């Protein structure tokens, strides 16, 4: 490995983004898994957010060089990732699938990866990677007996053993307990602070919120939003919301609520009201005084569209 490949370049030196997808699509027969998406990823932590089946793994596999784009291009450090063996000199992968070689111990598994990378001091690199993920105590146990969280950590150690510049992780926190998750997040933050590029996928908003500086939201194979997480979070929060309210007098409450500026529409439904609000915060603050002034008692106040899928569909259709 050359020094140039091993050393994470400073952000200021990076002219070309580490990853660039340009009008990239990928289909399998009649199924379009990824549709005409373009984005670039720079050093730091980027979260690939989207519901299950949105195309996140397909995007990661194309970046990792395991799937050829049906159209468009996928470049890593300016070179096509497809059939580019040199890519793996500076890229580490943590696949979502749990399988590791069950007959190998954690140490042997990481050492195998180090040797396959032909590292000059594989044993030293292995010890460092195992230490980084905090797996010293279990390193001499067969991975077949590992918990899901331990498997995720040993996979991370294997991905880190050659000191990669780029780390691709597919749902790395699946099955990981909260303490291990915090530890893994800490490791990833440290790696990012050293100037590395980390791209991880998740279908859990909170994971991405806690870890990523930048976010790419993918829904149904399309890029729904990208950029700073706080901006996207705001978009998600400020979208129109629908609430179901049950009260002592639904008709009177409907008449009172329609005058509130944050309310877009009210509909009487079976045993309650369905209210569409333009501003989540303002509406939540407005409801109690409106109900009190109208002499109505509130029994139930439930957001009707808080699923991640509904948030994602809003981002796609806005």
């Amino acid at each position, binding site marked *: 490995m050359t020094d140039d490949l091993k050393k994470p370049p400073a952000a200021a030196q990076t002219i070309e983004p580490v990853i660039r997808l340009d009008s990239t699509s990928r289909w399998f027969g009649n199924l379009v898994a990824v549709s005409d998406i373009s984005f670039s990823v720079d050093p730091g932590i980027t979260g690939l957010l989207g519901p299950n089946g949105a195309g996140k793994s397909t995007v990661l596999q194309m970046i990792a060089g*395991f*799937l050829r784009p049906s159209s468009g291009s996928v470049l890593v450090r300016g070179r096509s990732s497809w059939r580019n*063996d040199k890519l793996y000199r500076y*890229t580490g992968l943590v696949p979502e*699938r749990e*399988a590791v070689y069950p*007959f190998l111990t954690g140490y042997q598994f990481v050492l195998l*990866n180090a040797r396959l*990378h032909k590292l000059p001091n594989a044993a030293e690199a292995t010890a460092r990677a195992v230490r980084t993920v905090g797996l010293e105590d279990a390193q001499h146990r067969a991975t077949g007996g590992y918990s899901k969280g331990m498997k995720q950590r040993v996979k991370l150690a294997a991905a880190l053993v050659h000191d990669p510049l780029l780390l691709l992780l597919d749902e790395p926190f699946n099955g990981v307990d909260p303490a291990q998750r915090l530890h893994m997040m800490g490791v990833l933050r440290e790696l990012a602070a050293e100037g590395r590029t980390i791209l991880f996928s998740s279908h859990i908003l909170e994971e991405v919120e806690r870890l990523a500086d930048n976010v790419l939201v993918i829904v149904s194979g399309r890029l729904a939003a990208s950029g700073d997480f706080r901006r996207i979070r705001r978009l998600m929060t400020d979208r129109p919301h629908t609430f179901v309210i049950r009260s002592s007098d639904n008709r009177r409450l409907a008449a009172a609520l329609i005058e509130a500026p944050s309310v877009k529409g009210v509909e009487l439904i079976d045993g309650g009201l369905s209210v569409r609000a333009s501003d989540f915060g303002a509406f939540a603050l407005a409801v109690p005084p409106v109900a009190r002034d109208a002499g109505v008692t509130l029994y139930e106040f439930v957001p009707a569209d808080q699923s991640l899928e509904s948030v994602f569909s809003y981002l796609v259709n806005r």
Partner: protein
Amino acid sequence: MNREIFALSLRQLLGRRRTFALIALALLPLLVALVFRMGDTDTDPVDWTANGLLAGLIVYVLLPLVTLVLSTTSLGMEIEDGTIVYLLSKPLSRAQVIIAKLVASWLPAGALVSLSAASSAAIALPESEPSLILAFAIAGCLGALAYSAVFLLLSLLTSRALVFGLVYVFIWEGLVTGIFSGTRALSIREYTLGVADLLTAARQFDARLDGVTALVLMVVVTIAFVALAIRRLNRFETRSLF
């Protein structure tokens, strides 16, 4: 050849249960030879050993079954459980992966078939016939290499490599080549028997394919299938790799 992948593949293939089952299968010809030797029969022992035991049981059954199990598992299991990603995500040529996988599945298969052929023939024959024993041991080993190359490619093309392999062995080689003589040129079993015929001095055994032709075809098929497997792995894509 990459030694790490070779050693890893050997450990994968020679799990306790699989090894036990393959050894039990390889012991079967020894048992049959023992029964024949103890029986009181007028059959010519060299004729029976060559055509019945070595050709009929070792080459027709043991050789394809052992190589089929080992070769389709060698890469097929890694593709199925996703561990292949740890080999493909390294700065290694795909040819290194294929060669290591091929050798790892061929060596135990070749050793098992050759040992089974040599020891069962030694039991069955009242007088030593070294050329017959050596001929089938070498031909079995070479046949295992050719079968391994074919089945390795098969495991890259389909997740049902075992089923297609069985169809090839028992329908194509077992039935079709017996009916249509022209198809013998596309049968590894016939190549193996041809090579055995080329190497043995025993007159009781006569293969249907000329020895030199069989050897040339065996080499060509092996090289061609290894090249196709490398090409296939170079373009390998799967939706469920991650």
